[in-house]
């Protein structure tokens, strides 16, 4: 079966038309969006991308990771460190970053899956790894220690080879990553591996009983998820140009990564994208409201209440409900 057929097979003409329109809109967006709107669009794409990466673990393979900041932090630090110390550009640095993150993911996965840690126990393991990596980076002078690692910023410079430039460059970089992750996830879901993951998610013991190589499938899931998250970390490091262990490996960052797929719809391809749009849009709306009312912290209260309403109102996420209304439902996920 050709890749194109795998990608669009089963999609209705309406769904394909909407997808094409969305893609065209995203490609053309920098031409008509102002700098502020563009920075919001960048945040949406970033959260959609990392959400897609996390969704492979939780949404497809059913493994709860609450320490994904580990892979983003490692990816960012490795690529930024190589660039800062040796002038190695991020396109090369990203390979090293991904390799290190995959290795870390495999260690976490091996310990978790080999010893049958599941659910919250596996989640605790992921948190523990993220935490002690943070402490290690606090004392690693090559990475700047607790004082942080800073990349030089130059205004008005566009250098694609070294990923140096303005918001438009980073917009297209994260757009390519987000689209790439979407295509990859679609292909994975249509593959035998994808079917195995869904079987494991629904009932790991039953899957094992019918011959699914559960351990291997879970290891592949964590490796792919870690690799994609590390790429997000590389992008993040070069976009913001500074890294601190306290924020790069923070629990809060791990939680942020999980929100878009949970709100959008776990295990769905469009869930992380819709979740990122809803969460970022809502965040900006409440920020404006808070600034208008001049009450600090009001945003967090509204934001929390809105999340509560969404979770109660649509426990399966916003996307399955929205897809039904748009007539573009994904097949049985």
């Amino acid at each position: 079966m050709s890749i194109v057929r795998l990608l669009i097979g089963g999609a209705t003409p309406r769904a394909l038309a909407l997808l094409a329109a969305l893609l065209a809109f995203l490609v053309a967006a920098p031409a008509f969006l102002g700098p502020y709107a563009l920075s919001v669009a960048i945040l949406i794409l970033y959260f959609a991308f990392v959400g897609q990466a996390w969704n492979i673990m939780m949404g497809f393979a059913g493994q709860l990771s609450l320490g994904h900041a580990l892979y983003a932090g490692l990816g960012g630090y490795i690529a930024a460190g190589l660039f800062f110390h040796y002038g190695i550009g991020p396109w090369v640095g990203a390979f090293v970053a991904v390799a290190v993150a995959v290795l870390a993911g495999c260690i976490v996965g091996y310990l978790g899956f080999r010893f049958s840690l599941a659910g919250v126990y596996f989640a605790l393991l992921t948190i523990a790894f993220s935490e002690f990596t943070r402490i290690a980076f606090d004392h690693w002078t090559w990475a700047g220690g607790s004082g942080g690692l800073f990349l030089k910023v130059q205004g008005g410079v566009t250098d694609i080879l070294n990923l140096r430039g303005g918001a438009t460059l980073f917009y297209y970089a994260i757009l390519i990553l987000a689209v790439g992750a979407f295509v990859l996830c679609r292909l994975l879901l249509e593959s035998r591996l994808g079917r195995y993951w869904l079987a494991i998610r629904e009932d790991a013991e039953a899957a094992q009983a019918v011959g699914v190589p559960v351990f291997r499938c879970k290891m592949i899931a964590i490796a792919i998820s870690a690799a994609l998250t590390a790429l997000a970390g590389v992008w993040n490091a070069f976009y913001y140009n500074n890294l601190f262990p306290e924020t790069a490996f923070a629990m809060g960052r791990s939680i942020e990564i999980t929100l878009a797929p949970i709100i959008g719809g776990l295990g769905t391809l469009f869930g992380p994208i819709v979740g990122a749009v809803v969460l970022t849009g809502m965040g900006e709306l409440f920020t404006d409201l808070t600034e208008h009312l001049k009450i600090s912290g009001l945003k967090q209260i509204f934001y929390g209440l809105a999340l509560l309403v969404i979770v109660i109102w649509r426990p399966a996420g916003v996307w399955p409900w929205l897809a039904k209304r748009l007539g573009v439902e994904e097949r049985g996920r």
Partner: protein
Amino acid sequence: MTIRHPTRRDLSRATLAGAALVGAPAILTSGVARAQSGPLKVALILPTSGVQAQLGIACRRGADVANDVFAAMKIEGRVEITTYDTESKPDVARTQAEKAVAAGAHILCGAFDSGQTIAIAQVAEQRGIPFIVNIAAAPQITEQGYKWVVRNFPTAPMLITSGLTLHKELFRVTGKTPKTAVLMSVNDTFGTAMVNGIKALFPKLEMPYELLDIITYDPAAKDLSVEVAKAKATKAELLMPVSRLNDAKLLVQELVKQRWEPMGVMNPGAPGLYEQDFLKTMGKFGEFHISNVPWLNPKSPMTQALEKAHAEKYPNDQLDLNGGFTFEAMLVAINALNRARSTHANALMEALRRTKIDQHVMVGGAIEFDAKGQNVNIRSACVQNLKRKPTVVLPADSAAAAPIFPMPGWNDRRRG
């Protein structure tokens, strides 16, 4: 009662309304041309929610009274301040900076935290908007060759050097010099950076005491009895804490409980000991501790005007270095406008580079920026808690009271 379920039309309306609400600020602001004249629009970008909220709000209070102080000091002009919340996150700081520029801000100011400050600095560099850093100590901020950034706050090495130099000055003035010291530090980003800085600078500064031990602890510690017992066992004559607020309280509580009475509790440049909440909570046991930090110069007429305006507007809140430096950022901005006579970015930046403000509120020389955009004239002050108030006791030309060192014992009646 009949419940009316939403129809598809209702849904479409709601979706359109939601989209309009979300998109409106962007659409409206993206087309706003940057004003070339009129009042100076300052975007004050601070963490007013999240983990740094209290500190960000303390900063904002200093800016809130800026126009009143300008009027009292007969300084021409007014600043039109719009506050943007970073939520204590660098990514939000960057988006907020973009929003501020799109809304027509002439000058950006912030952001208390180094990571958030650098995120804003990138927007300033890329969009060509002057950025005044009120508080952020990472040396890299002014070491990267930014063209649009000035900082009126000391770097971490400046803080440590200035703080340790004041230790020697205090011993000279009081005639009492401890021979040994122990350093107790929180092991977060700030604490680790301070400990590393002290280790590096200690030999160069030829300190008169021997550093017997460095004891670190977690910022979330709920009990410091073991750490304090360990420090007490060193028999050090001076305790140097690098603390935050809550651990500073735990530390002093343990000192009292364990009846350890060193000659002094004196930090080398850290928060905690001078903070309003510490003073309120610790009562008489919060007295006589010393912080060597940048502080408001009580002898400056502008500080007196600032304290008066702050007390009138915020009678229940203490004015500290956060408010002081943020006020000074507004002062630097209005001073630049008055010399540039234009709100054009290039004119303002050129004026900022040539800043020289002799009369201001913080201890130290005139506010002026070197080629890197750093004010190198800032000095720390020896701030001792006296009568439940942080009081400048050194340098002598800024002192509001004489230093008391060694500090009285815990049962000494002067503490009452």
